[in-house]
């Protein structure tokens, strides 16, 4: 590498991203100070305090970032699979050698006071491997073998991390599916996943509520109606068969409407039986279409319809077989059960912390909820509480907006990559950030399940900060090289 090209690289560094990165890290440090403030040890910079340590993690991250900026893209191109392999071995080894930390085997002790979590570092390896894989000229995401390999690369670390009993960290790898979507994976898969979640949440939450004056469960009714609408929409969007759409709409929605009227004006009865019958007819019709047209699309839609219609009944029976504490957690999340001392304690206290912040917050180091340890894991997974309590709505919304800008910037950076590897890697990175933001903030706000994953740059901890820095600066270095190749 010549001096001139180094200069070129310096000029090509995406300083906007770096600015956002620094804003987030500094903002995060103040939040950690708030979360870890100890009345007996008010020195924020002392090594004994988490805020003091976080400065060290931040400083070393900057060093790490600088080093990463010096490593050429060629290196990753060459070593992607090696890195991936080494990481997988590390993850596997960790299961065996890591000591038990609150039930999980994911932390490797380095020396006496420092521990690292290999799972945080595996993401970049997976992202690199996916980039390398999809950069192949003959790679076709529509090819079931090719997409199978990509999914395999994603699932392997998930399995290993679940083996470490860190289910939360494993779930993060679902973020890569969003990248696959960008690369051309059919949207119907994402749609199916999303629809399943909606069915589950709506079905469970309202299964025991009834439409007034009718023996009809709102949950069951809504799920069946959604299943009909989604299936019909898919036939319309993917098969462009307007005749089939008209037939199915008339049958399903018409019979439902008639049943409703009958139930209201004549004899109240469970409309869902009629709807279920209509769904069965609809599925049989689509299967018939499959056999008639020999188009596999119809088959998939039929499968979707079957899953949609049965999900409500399946989830109910699965739900009944869950362990008590899992069932309680789900019920609390869905708002069906109030349990402020038990499963709902974390989220309840988190909500109190955020809600008590008001518009402008209680001020730096003045939060009582977080300072007095009412919120568990407040400096790691529940760090957003401190933001909400001490900086109020303005601060919390500000953090979210900076994140939005950061993610949008990363989309722009990824899109301007000149090769697939860069773009794939970039999307991997931004999807990981998006997933962390979605789950972490959502759980603090009581909207998503409590899954123990950190908020990037805010949550206390060296491993996560280094992990995210690693992810980001490899991308920035790749991005900085984009102009070189054109020369």
């Amino acid at each position: 590498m010549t001096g001139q090209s180094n200069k070129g690289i310096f000029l090509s560094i995406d300083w906007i991203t770096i600015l956002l990165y620094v804003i987030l890290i500094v903002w995060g440090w103040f939040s950690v100070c708030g979360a870890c403030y100890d009345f007996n040890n008010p020195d924020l910079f002392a090594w004994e305090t988490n805020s003091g340590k976080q400065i060290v993690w931040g400083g070393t991250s900057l060093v790490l970032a600088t080093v990463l900026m010096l490593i050429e893209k060629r290196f990753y191109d060459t070593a992607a699979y090696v890195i991936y392999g080494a990481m997988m071995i590390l993850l596997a080894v960790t299961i065996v050698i890591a000591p038990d930390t609150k039930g999980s085997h994911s932390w490797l002790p380095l020396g006496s006071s420092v521990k690292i979590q290999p799972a945080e570092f595996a993401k970049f390896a997976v992202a690199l491997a996916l980039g390398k894989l999809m950069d192949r000229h003959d790679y076709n995401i529509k090819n079931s073998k090719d997409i199978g390999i990509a999914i395999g690369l994603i699932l392997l670390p998930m399995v290993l991390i679940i083996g470490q009993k860190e289910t939360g960290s494993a779930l993060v790898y679902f973020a890569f599916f969003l990248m696959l979507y960008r690369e051309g994976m059919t949207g119907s898969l994402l749609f199916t996943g999303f629809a399943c979640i909606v069915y589950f949440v709506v079905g469970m939450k309202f299964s025991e509520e009834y439409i007034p004056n009718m023996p009809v469960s709102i949950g069951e009714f809504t799920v069946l109606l959604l299943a009909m609408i989604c299936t019909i929409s898919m036939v319309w969007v993917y098969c462009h068969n307007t005749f089939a759409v008209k037939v199915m709409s008339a049958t399903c929605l018409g019979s439902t409407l008639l049943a409703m009227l009958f139930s209201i004006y004549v004899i109240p009865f469970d409309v869902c039986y009629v709807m279920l019958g209509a769904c069965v007819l609809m599925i049989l019709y689509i299967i018939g279409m499959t056999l008639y047209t020999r188009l596999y699309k119809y088959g998939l839609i039929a499968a979707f319809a079957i899953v949609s219609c049965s999900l409500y009944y399946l989830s109910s029976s699965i739900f009944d077989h869950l362990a008590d504490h899992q069932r309680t957690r789900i019920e609390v999340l869905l708002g069906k059960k109030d349990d402020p001392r038990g499963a709902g304690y974390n989220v309840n206290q988190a909500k109190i912390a955020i809600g008590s912040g008001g518009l402008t917050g209680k001020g730096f180091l003045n939060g009582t909820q977080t300072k007095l340890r009412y919120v568990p894991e407040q400096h790691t997974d529940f760090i957003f509480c401190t933001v909400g309590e001490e900086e109020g709505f303005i601060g919390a919304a500000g953090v979210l907006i900076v994140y939005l800008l950061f993610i949008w910037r990363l989309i722009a950076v990824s899109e301007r990559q000149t090769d697939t590897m860069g773009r794939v890697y970039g999307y991997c990175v931004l999807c990981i950030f998006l997933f962390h933001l979605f789950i972490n903030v959502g759980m603090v706000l009581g909207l998503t399940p409590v899954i123990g994953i950190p908020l990037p740059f805010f949550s206390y901890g060296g491993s996560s900060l280094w992990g995210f820095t690693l992810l980001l600066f490899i991308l920035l270095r790749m991005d900085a090289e984009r102009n070189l190749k054109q020369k």
Partner: protein
Amino acid sequence: MQNHLYEYRKFIIGGIALVVVLSYIARLGFLQLSDEEYKSRADNNAFLNSIIFPSRGVIYDRNGELLVYNQPAYDIMVIMREVNNLDTLEFCKTLNITKATFDERMALIKNHNKNPGYSPYTQQLFLAQISAEEFSIFQEKMFRFHGFYVRERTIRRYATDYCAHVLGDVAEVSPTDVERDDYYSPGDYIGKQGVERSYEQELRGVKGVEVLLRDARGRIQGHYKNGALDRKPVPGKNLTLSIDAKLQALGERLMEGKMGAIVAIEPKTGEILCMVSAPSYDPHRMEGKQRGAQMMEMQRDPMKPMLNRAISGTYPPGSTFKTSQGLTFLQEGIITSSTAYPCYHGFVTKGMKVGCHGHGSPLPLLPAIATSCNGYFCWGLYHMLSNRQKYTTIQDAVTTWKDYMVSMGFGYKLGIDLPGEARGMIPNADYYDRRLGRWNALGVISIAIGQGEVTLTPLQIANLCATIANRGYYVTPHIVKEVQDGHIADSLKVKHKTKVDTSYYNMVVEGMRKAVLGGTCHSANSPQYAVCGKTGTAQNRGKDHSAFMGFAPMEDPQIAVAVYVENGGFGATYGVPIGALIMEQYINGELSPSSEEKATSFQNRHIDYGTRER
């Protein structure tokens, strides 16, 4: 390789990010901006308003002798979470409790129904109010009992063995107290009886508060804003009673083994010098944790030792009431000082007879008072009620009579600064109309001699005596002379004029003096000062009640006393000698040796009341 085919999907992914962030901002707005509920819940979580109790005011007698004070006591507290490796046997031995008590207490603490505020991280009350001696034994071994702590509290202590009814007691507030006054929280102490109750506001002081920060486990992390919001407690005000402790002690000695009351008043000021209700009890019984059991026992006692007969007991005043009748007849012009009525062993007319003892007849007012002639006062009332020139109907006459009685402090509460005062009974025309239908003077004649429907409290009899000593007015009798850094209520300083002129009072005073010099109360006579007195022998279903009222010295009265001994027989049997001793003690400050002997003999003269419920 560029992938332009799906480039539009960057907008979908960017849009997902936008939707996520916007919906989270909306959620934040809902949580943070919509209501204050979360804020107050956070405050409830974090702030612990720790109450600092002020010291309760102490109580002195009129000479500055300490009667009631505070003493530290110790509660044993336990933090369940910290209890480990407890040597239960050793622990029980140290606190002198049984293993069963220990298990019972521990179970009670953990019972969420009985102890709703239970948390294994905070101090819970294990044993209340152990004494300083017990505490010192416990303290030595405390280091071995992990999780056990001591909390200091004060308990009310009595420096006197007497005066229980006046002093009253303190105990934990009842739920109604808490509801009525939001100053109190469950577990606070409040005055229950006596001056402890009537001067609760002054004695209690003002609670202080420390705003503490409490962490998720209930542990205290320090003062909020370094104590800027803390408030120091204001100690309660000390009280000086008008009671003379020595006089009170003598009174209680004299009333031993009897039922009844003594009330002595300083006539000029209305200050109560002693207030004895017999049977009484030792105020020490109300100290500390034994109070509940002692209360139960006393409430079951048929002699009702808890009842303050001096203000709550209502009795027929008997002949002491005749003074008020003489005054009324004089003022109304029914009689003059020279009017004489016959008495042939009583009031005999139209087949009606009210008996009397032997004395000269006919006789005017002064000897009538001195000899306590029933006939004289019955004739007086008979003439008053039958006087149709002056009063158009008998109802008018009785109403006029009643107004005189009320002006002398009868029939209504006097307004003493103690709880539980009774009003006594003065019948009015309406009452007789309802009770008797058609009635005449003869039908109600016994009220002239303090019998029949008329009842007074011993306090009202003493007040009558004070009014005569003052020649026509009384000051509301009261028990508290002084409130530290404050003043007693104005209502306790009001001079009440009766409807009778001073000149008529002088005549009654003369009569009462005559009673001491040569009448019914001659044993009350003193060579050192001029005593005026009036006996009373009140008839009732059992043996007569013995009553006496008197004041001394005649010209500059310092003390007016009323004595009432249930079933004591003649007024002269118990009433007069006890009253005389009370006056001697107060005026001379001590009893002569012969009086002392007399006092001891009265102390040992007990009346057998049987065990019937009263």
